[in-house]
């Protein structure tokens, strides 16, 4: 406890809470059809994004997947441009061309997100390669899910990265499901961290709902990468509290989440934010009134983000052809 400054701990809390409040603010707009693009909420998984990104510098790179609102925000992205993107507005981070699955913020090192499963892992390796060639000590992080560990490209990437000692951290967010498939139906062996072993990549399995544990692991990984002894593999065990796509359902528009209610209830008790909040209160890092104040601020920020998105215009029809080439 002592080794962290109060500011740092509050910041971690704020980062997670910003993600959660933003995610939850999208539920109604999705249900009533104001948000039309497919949205993969990351409620419940905030500690992974927050813990990993807290170990990075602004100049370090991250790449995301289809479920990347949290990655975008944790790396320093603004809520208003995120929400505007989800609404398809010109003021969105991808100017309304990408929607929820294509978030980008290069100034903060968020190099993009894309829903082709495992599709951005090699790109993250490439950013690490660029850093390596230029001897910059910039670290690159690839965020992907348990589902992505079934794509061959991940294994090619681990091999290449290890062979060239690239400063990349592979972060697998294991939430036990890939759409309708439980991880046990996808892999004969569910200890995902072990897949890095044959490539001589140090690997750690961490409680992905414990933000400090994630942070400590990430710190170790970042140090190794800056030191020239990357890559590093982190498996963060976590759970999404919402559906695969949309708020509650595994299939948008129907009530067919295949996950057992007891399992969901069990994970609700492991809510990374509620537990961290209690921990901060118990250890006098935050007082009740400070917590309320933080919540009030974030609620307001999120509300304003929706107003911003609402007031923004859609892309101009005359700009349909824009951005195909630079």
């Amino acid at each position, binding site marked *: 406890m002592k080794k962290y400054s109060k500011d740092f701990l509050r910041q971690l809390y704020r980062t997670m809470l910003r993600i959660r409040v933003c995610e939850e603010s999208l539920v109604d707009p999705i249900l009533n059809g104001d948000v*039309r*693009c*497919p949205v993969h909420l990351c409620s419940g998984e905030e500690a992974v994004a927050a813990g990993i990104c807290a170990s990075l510098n602004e100049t370090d790179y991250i790449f995301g997947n289809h479920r990347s609102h949290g990655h975008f925000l944790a790396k320093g992205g603004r809520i208003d441009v995120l929400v505007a993107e989800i609404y*398809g*507005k010109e003021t969105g981070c*991808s100017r*309304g*061309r*990408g*929607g929820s*699955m*294509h978030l980008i913020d290069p100034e903060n090192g968020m190099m993009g997100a*894309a*829903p*082709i*499963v*495992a*599709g951005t892992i090699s790109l993250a390796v490439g950013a690490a390669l660029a850093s390596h060639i230029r001897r910059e000590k910039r670290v690159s992080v690839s965020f992907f899910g348990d*589902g*992505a560990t*079934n*794509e*061959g*490209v991940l294994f090619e990437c681990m091999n290449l990265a290890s062979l060239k000692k690239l400063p990349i951290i592979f972060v697998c967010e294991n939430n036990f499901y*890939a*759409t*309708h*498939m439980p991880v046990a*139906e*996808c*892999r004969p062996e569910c200890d995902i961290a072990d897949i890095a072993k044959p490539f001589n990549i140090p690997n750690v399995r961490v409680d992905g709902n414990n933000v400090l544990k994630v942070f400590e692991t990430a710190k170790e990984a970042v140090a190794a990468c800056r030191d020239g002894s990357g890559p590093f593999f982190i498996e963060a065990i976590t759970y999404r509290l919402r559906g695969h796509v949309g708020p509650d359902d*595994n*299939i948008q528009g*129907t009530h*067919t989440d*295949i996950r057992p209610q007891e399992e969901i209830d069990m994970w609700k008790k492991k809510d990374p934010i509620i537990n961290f909040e209690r921990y901060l209160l118990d250890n006098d890092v935050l007082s009740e009134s400070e917590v309320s104040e933080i919540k009030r601020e974030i609620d307001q920020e999120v509300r304003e983000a929706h107003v911003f998105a609402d007031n923004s215009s*859609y*892309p101009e*029809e005359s*700009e*349909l*052809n824009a951005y*195909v080439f630079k």
Partner: protein
Amino acid sequence: MSLNNRKLQYSLAANEAFHQMMGEDESVFLIGQGVKSPWYVGNTARGLLERFGPDRVIDTPVSENAVTGAAVGAAMSGMRSVVVHPRMDFMMYALDPIINQAANWYYMNGGKLSVPIVFWGIINRGGEQAAQHSQALHTILGHIPGLKVVMPSTPYDAKGLMISAIKDDNPVVYIDDRWLHSTEGVVPEEIYEVPIGKGAIRREGNDVTLVAVSFIMRHALEAAAELAQENIEVEVIDLRTIKPLDKDLVLESVKKTGRLAVADSGWKTYGLAAEISAFVFEEAFDSLKAPFVRVTLPDLPAPASSALEKLYYPTTKDIVRAIRGMVNK
């Protein structure tokens, strides 16, 4: 016969083809993401797992390259594989086994081993899904020697072409469009084939030949009906197969009408419409009274925002406007 007037949804027509083919031929099996749940493939796979079991109805991890390659290898080894990609976009990981391996195998091995496989890809556009979840990539596959490519637009053809594709001894790419899945039409209950490589005239006319395929057939027929009010009689050809092309059907029509319009839900450059126009130009140049027109997607990735999406996808109006322009010249 009342049985033969039965109406069925497009997706259930394909489903019936699977039930019947898997029922009659034990070498037929279905593999791919989502076949055990309505998650990706809607009701196209309904009841198959229950009836044929997990050895022949195989849901898979997200491993398109390996799964597709395995389906190819199984087809080389005595099975008739159907491998589904619930979005064509995901199929890109599988282009090596499709293009390098399956398409070439028979030829490059001197006809010693053929690959009876169906690569089934679903086009899944719109809904602000953006560039990686909306692509209609049929012409990439149509470009490849050794692949046949079918694109049914009606429930009748969805069933008949799936049966033909499964029975074919060669790799056949079967492409449907999610927007077609709920359309209803007459589907006979028995097993029947729609020949691969044969188009169909869906409406007769003397002024313009309009060639289309798959979902955009709907717009083509609407456009023809609208133009008929202006006394422009459009002959609408549903290609049904984009490789090999039913050139005779198109040429015969163009020789009658002297005008060619092509509507395709793929991109313009190097696309299906370009290919149709090219062979008509080569083989019916003398009958042409006007330059051909192409109604396609613009050469752009799919945008997310519906403000742009509504401009992006070609509509009935676009076809009407294009044809009006060519007739009034």
